[in-house]
């Protein structure tokens, strides 16, 4: 439990990180550093996108699975890590 806390806290405090959202298999945001409406929006959209990406990968090679998704936009980068149907969404502003 403490390790989990520590890991999440570390990511949340990382350089350039704007927000972190942890979503469970049902699409419910368990943990977030952003406000509710933003969290809900991100969770919903990224769940759908992740599922689509996942099916894409698995359609091409059923043995394969999606591990990470990175969306680079003009303003920042959205990173989605997938494990056991849990999603860890990190929005980062990489500074140079």
């Amino acid at each position, binding site marked *: 439990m403490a390790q989990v806390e520590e890991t999440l806290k570390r990511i949340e405090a*990382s*350089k350039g990180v704007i927000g972190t959202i942890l979503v469970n298999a*049902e699409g*419910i945001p368990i943990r977030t550093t952003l406000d509710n409406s933003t969290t809900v929006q991100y969770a*919903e959209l990224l769940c759908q996108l992740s599922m689509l990406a996942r099916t894409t990968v698995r359609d091409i090679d059923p043995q394969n699975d999606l591990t990470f998704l990175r969306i680079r936009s003009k303003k920042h980068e959205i990173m989605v890590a997938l494990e*056991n149907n*849990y999603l*860890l969404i990190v929005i*980062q502003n990489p500074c*140079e």
Partner: protein
Amino acid sequence: QEIKVNQRRRQYCSLFQVNTERFESDSCGINHVEGGWPKDINPLDMEQTIRFRKKAEKDESYLNSIPQLGSVAEHCGRQNNAVDIYQEPFDGWEEVEESPEPPSAKTINIFRDPNEVKRTVTGLSWHPDGGRKLAAAYSCLDFQKASRDMSLDSYIWDVENPNRPELTLKPASPLVCLDYNPKDPHTLVGGSYNGQIVYWDTRRGSQPVELSSVEHSHRDPVYKIIWLQSKTGTDAFSASTDGQVLWWDVRRLSEPTERLVLDPTREGNLDRALGAISLEFEATMPTKFMVGTEQGLVVSCNRKAKTPTEKIVCTYDGHHGPVYALQRNPFFPKNFLTVGDWTARIWSEDIKESSIMCTKYQMSYLTDACWSPVRPSVFFTLKMDGMLDVWDILFKQSDPTLSLKVCDRALYSLRVQDNGRLVACGSQQGETTLLEICSELSTLQKNEKSLLAAVSDTDTVNLDFNQLHPK
């Protein structure tokens, strides 16, 4: 058992008729706004949601997945911070020319001494305003070789017209050196073979406006004369092999304003004085100057010293023969260039024991040298075999970067114009050749100043060119 399908259309009728209730069905997608909350929890109820979340955090699969998720996300986050993988590579870099051409220079014009008996071009000075005119001093420095019918004249040439000089300067004795006044381009000052200082105003014609009196002039040819940076713009100083450095105000040339005897024992004894053959003055350091002597020593002096003995600050053991040229680097004034014997040397003011760089012994005697006004690592040298060498010490130290055969005779004087591209060299046969140097050698390169500073900014006695190649 095969069932034959009858293709013919036939009215079907059922055995029974039943009426069912209408069931309307419609196809549509379900929009999960809040995620799939379990039925019993109201998503709007904060308390319930918090409780659910807390419970979810204790779930085993959650606890197992997080570390994995965390490490992956963290890794990518760190990657983003380390390098911007989406940036445009080499953005902002200038287009570098593919395989630059080898350095070159081309002759633009040759100005020949119009007289029958040719004299050596012993001094050159560029017009301060754009370099459209070049003044050349002609004299014969070979002892007693000057014939009686040798002309005494020196000329000012228009760079575009090699056929005829623009103005003739008529001194009483041939000029050995001359200098345009940087503050007033109409006026020039010259030092003659008999030791006199001569002052011209080009608006007033060929005859000198004023001459220094013979009694108070030098007793030997004046080898170098340079204008000083004074408020009035009328001060100059001269050096001669008679062992003196004299200061003059051109408004009153009857007597020098100041006098320094180059006696290394600092006693002002003319018998022990060293003969001066070159002079150095940098306007950014107006109180200091340096003198190159016939004996091979370079003497550093301070004009504003309180006592006469302190005027001679120190000496540098320069060359095995007369120091024909002496100049500070325009970008790094602590370093100066000297030529004499068969080498060119670069010195650091602070290091008195030896030069910090010395070229190989050349095949023939070096007669003049000067730094490029635009590139701190480039300098030019002239040799008695008629060669002009261009050295780029950041590129190559062992040999000149460019060697040109300007003429068959010895070359004696050299002046680079302020733009760094035009070089004038004067020969023993009275020919002044004007060359244009390629743009590579006359354009400041990227990082040149900092590279040269790195190379010379060491405590070692020699320029450390290893600094250019990091390990």
